[in-house]
């Protein structure tokens, strides 16, 4: 039974982390940057392995953080040099990801890390990879990692709430007020890198994008308050995790796949019934009574 609980807890933590960070990505119209970072952190993980010969823990977080920030920086740099911003994203992340892939294939025989795992994740294995302190198991490593990143995310959002808000809404005004918008941008990208790498094991690089963007885009339909949107987005992430897991066990399909599909289903349902902009209400209003 505790097997189920660990998986659900992992998915829940992924949902909350991604929901919180994703909200700011959606509002800053940087959704595609999450796609970029979720791929390029693979290079960070491989790089961390090359340095520390470990696949988990602090070294992996640092590796992902560095490459995540490098991605952000390179995208910005190319954009400033006159490359269109979406093209800049496309160039940077494919290159960094590809370097990661090449490096993995170099070490393939010595390390349990493969491209498929990185892309798809395998949440079903999470409960078996436990953290041990003095020979005593204290729960899966993924839970500790996700919990640690969640603490960072919540701390930053609570601490810098108004700065995040104004720099997302009105960057120029924020600059005139002396708010360090560039620092805030990089802190947010750092949070995104950490969130991505912590979620990597469970849902993989591709589906982490779904968890980052879809719940936030859904929450955007339901509310017109930033604080509510954050809570709503995290809740939808958790809901999708629970529904996805139940669906996966019922039909014996990929857990992470089912979770991502659930986010999509919740989004499309919301698109119709959300009070603010629901298509259903518009449709009812339009059709003659």
């Amino acid at each position, binding site marked *: 039974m505790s097997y189920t609980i660990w998986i659900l807890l992992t998915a829940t933590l992924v949902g909350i982390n991604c929901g919180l960070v994703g909200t700011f990505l959606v*509002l800053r119209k940087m959704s595609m940057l999450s796609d970029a970072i979720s791929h390029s952190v693979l290079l960070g993980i491989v790089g961390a392995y090359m340095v520390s010969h470990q696949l988990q823990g602090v070294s992996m977080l640092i590796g992902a953080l560095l490459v995540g920030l490098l991605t952000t920086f390179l995208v910005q740099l190319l954009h400033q040099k006159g490359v269109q911003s979406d093209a800049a994203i496309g160039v940077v992340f494919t290159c960094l990801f590809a370097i990661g892939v090449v490096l993995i294939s170099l070490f393939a025989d010595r390390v349990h890390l493969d491209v498929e795992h990185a892309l798809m994740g395998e949440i079903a294995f999470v409960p078996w990879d436990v953290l041990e302190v003095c020979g005593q198991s204290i729960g899966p490593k993924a839970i500790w990692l996700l919990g640690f990143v969640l603490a960072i995310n919540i701390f930053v959002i609570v601490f810098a709430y108004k700065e995040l*808000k104004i720099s*997302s*809404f009105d960057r120029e*005004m924020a600059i*005139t007020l*002396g708010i360090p918008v560039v620092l805030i941008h990089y802190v947010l990208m750092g949070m995104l890198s950490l969130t991505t790498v912590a979620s990597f094991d469970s849902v993989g690089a591709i589906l982490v994008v779904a968890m980052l963007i879809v719940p936030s885009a859904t929450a955007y339909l339901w509310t017109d308050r930033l604080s509510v949107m954050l809570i709503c987005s995290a809740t939808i992430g958790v809901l999708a995790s629970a529904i996805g897991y139940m669906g996966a066990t019922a039909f014996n399909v990929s857990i992470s796949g089912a979770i991502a599909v659930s986010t999509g289903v919740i989004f499309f349902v919301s698109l119709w019934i959300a009070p603010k902009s629901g298509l259903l209400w518009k449709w009812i209003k339009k059709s003659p009574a």
Partner: protein
Amino acid sequence: MNPLVVEQVTVAYDRQLVLEDVSFSVPEGKLVGIIGPNGAGKSTLMKAMLNFIPRMHGNVFVYGKPYEKQRHLVGYVPQRNSVDWDFPTNALDVVLMGRYGHIGLWKRPRKEDVDIAMQCLDKVGMLPYAKRQISQLSGGQQQRVFLARALAQDASVYFMDEPFVGVDAATEKAIVQLLNELKMRGKTVLVVHHDLQTVRDYFDYVLLLNKRVVAFGETESVFTYDHIQKTYGGKVTFLSSTHIVG
């Protein structure tokens, strides 16, 4: 000491000069209109003064010190379309942003800040809409929210980028009233403006700009037919003599 002194500001995009050697100095308590054709660099000048875009060279002094050291004295009202009005927030929240400089980094707004924000909303006639989601406001109402935010900032020098664009008559009136109130309180206000017909009514000073300063000074003496022709390259024909006394 003049509240705003601009010295030889030059800006280039891709090595092409868009502003050249712009210098002027504004006395305290004046309303200044920045006038010029499209592409004359009006908004660019404002952005360069506020450091949104780099200046190739030139200095901006606010009350005798470089702008960078006097940010807290400067309020900015951006063009209305420069922000995403679908952002999940309400009118009061936006006005409260004007208080962020006073509140300080990483700190929370106090009740006092909320009270000030409410008063500012009241001044622009937007109190009933305080809790309204900003996307549900009309263009004029959105502009008034921006002005209330500038009021809440309680700055000494204001920069406003095209506040009259796309607003209804009532809002236009409210803005003019507000500009005069700011002036009464000794504030200095620079406004990027495009409607030549109202220049004489609204502004004490004008800066006629077309990549360079064509003329700067009191509206009475500077806003002349010759200067306007020079600024617009002879393309202004629709103005009657009642608007320009040459």
